[in-house]
């Protein structure tokens, strides 16, 4: 669709409403159904590992993910800068800014 074109209004609102409702439900599921109670030990052992697994996947897909393909582009420069900043024990904000600046610079050069 060309820039500035308008998708059918009802279609856009359908997406906004359905995705909104689904997301509200997904986010609320745990706290509303279980809220305040502790998880059994075996579940806790699994849940502890959910954060590392998901975060690593978000990093990998965020850097190398394309449209149904793996791509090597300027984002890799950003990843490299982030790793370097982490090795130098820089604060998180510096790590993030380094990644954005490195990616933008690489885009400027290519």
């Amino acid at each position, binding site marked *: 669709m060309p820039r500035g074109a308008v998708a059918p209004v009802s279609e856009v609102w359908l997406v906004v409403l359905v995705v909104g409702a689904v997301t509200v439900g997904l986010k609320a599921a745990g706290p509303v159904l279980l809220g305040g109670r502790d998880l059994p030990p075996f579940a806790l052992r*699994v849940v502890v590992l959910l954060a590392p697994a998901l975060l690593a996947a978000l990093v990998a897909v965020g850097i190398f993910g394309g449209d149904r393909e793996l791509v090597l582009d300027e984002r890799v420069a950003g990843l490299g800068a982030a790793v370097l900043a982490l090795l130098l024990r820089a604060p998180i904000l510096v790590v993030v800014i380094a990644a954005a600046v490195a990616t933008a610079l690489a885009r400027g050069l290519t």
Partner: protein
Amino acid sequence: MAFAFGLSFGVLAKASGMGSLAPVVMSMTTFAGSAQFAAASVIGTGGGALAAIGAASLLNTRYAPISLTVAPSLGGSWPSRLLQSQLIVDESWAVAQSGGGRVDRRTLVGAGALLWVFWVGGTTVGVLGAGFIGDPARYGLDAAFPALFLALLVALVDSRRALLAAVLGATIALALVPFSAAGVPIIAASLACLVGLWRR
């Protein structure tokens, strides 16, 4: 950063033909960056409502396991739990990790509320100023969130098992990217946490 991302969502959504009000309402209710970007890009490329809903919902299924991890930390009446649970986003959940799979409620709610304000504000400015701002990717913003996730990940990996889960999660996700719709790789990667069932 959330503001800048909200801004780029506003610009992209406007360019995809979503109008001005719908993207802002979406940022207020859905409040999940990757799903919103996916929905806007599907609409923008003429993929239709069903494909947009499918892609965005799939991307957000990760909030089911995430909300389970938050459950023990959120007390109170169910309407208050419902309200607080809406402040769960990747970033607020990630910074609220207090070790041992626990989530600090105050950090989660505080960070979530702050992110929400910047996300919705950024979207509004982006929608209104879409004409004046170029392609947000030029500023390297697409590498900023992965960098944030990486920094948080490094702080979280405190055992061999956590490292294994991280490596496995990233591998599963990358392996599936070429063969599945956006969102599937991330959800499948959450299965890596099952290595926790394996006793030494």
